């Protein structure tokens, strides 16, 4: 399952809409958050994605090419949930 983020994301409603679009059962799934096009993302959006995906029992939320600030928002949200292990950040975005 892949969530492809646009260039700018904010708000919990937008996160809900993107997660709701995923087809299939989240429980036990590998969900990839594709941030290649992302320029800026708000902490509330990051928190809601983490909360929805990990809260639904996904085996892993794999984050690809996230800008540093957005990656920090994701880590913070996972830490608040006490669930850093299932959040995997890979391949930092190349610096501009």
């Amino acid at each position, binding site marked *: 399952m892949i969530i492809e983020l646009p260039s700018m994301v904010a*708000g919990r409603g937008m996160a809900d809409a993107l997660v709701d679009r995923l087809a299939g059962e989240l429980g036990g799934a590998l969900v990839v958050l594709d941030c290649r096009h992302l*320029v*800026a993302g*708000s902490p*509330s959006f990051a928190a809601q994605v983490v909360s929805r995906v990990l809260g639904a029992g996904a085996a892993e939320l794999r984050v690809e090419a996230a800008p540093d600030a957005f990656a920090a*928002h994701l880590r913070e949200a996972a830490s608040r949930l006490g669930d850093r292990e299932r959040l995997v950040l890979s391949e930092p975005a190349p610096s501009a």
Partner: protein
Amino acid sequence: MGHLACRREGSGHVLDLSGCRWVDPAHLVGVAAVAARHAGAGTRLRVIGPSRADQRRYAARMHLGRVLDDLGVAHDLVDVVPEADRVLDLLEVRRVTTEADALALARLVHGRTAAGDPVAAEALFTGVAELAANVADHAQAPGYVAAQVLPAAGCVRFAVADGGLGLRQTLAGRGARGARHALHLALDGTSRLADPTRGVGLVTVVHEVGRLRGSLFLASGTAAVRASGSAAPGRAVRVDSALRSPFGGTLVEAVVGVRGARSPERVP
């Protein structure tokens, strides 16, 4: 903030900015929020603009009169301003009621600042998106956003206000004992909702503002607090103050240092 107090006038109220020596985005969104509150309650309000010509022109440039017209609130501000005079007005007074509004305004501010300072633009995006989204999520009233480039100071000032519930009422169920306590709870990351991932927005904005040599002013009810001074999470210095005239709702103003802070190009 004192200029946002209303006085009675017959069967209605007057909000009088005539003695205002300086008008900034916080005044503008504050007036708009108070006006929206009156409009929503069906009470008559009249707004008297600043007496000083430069401040009067600024309020007009930022389209405060247009916002008041939309709310059906009487005022004496004109709204005929050459667009060439508006190059430093990053974002004129805009209404926000939904998360989609918040995202659109955050995108706009980012687009107008990214070329000069991409780091500050990202912080401004987060600030506008989070603070405006808080209005949509919690205030139960429309909010207003405005932003201004201050080239002499090398910074951008932006403000968000609503005439909604206010932080004391919003956080009453989370242990807020009073107006001041509610502000500190919010700055500590306490949300109306018990979800542990909630409450991150304002905390992050304070952190980002501190990282960029700025400060954040938060006011609601009878209390206000300014957070500034440190980029380290949770280490910002907070200075409390009391408002002589309570603000019925929530007002946030943030100042962010922006490299160059040059005049943004206008976006059609």
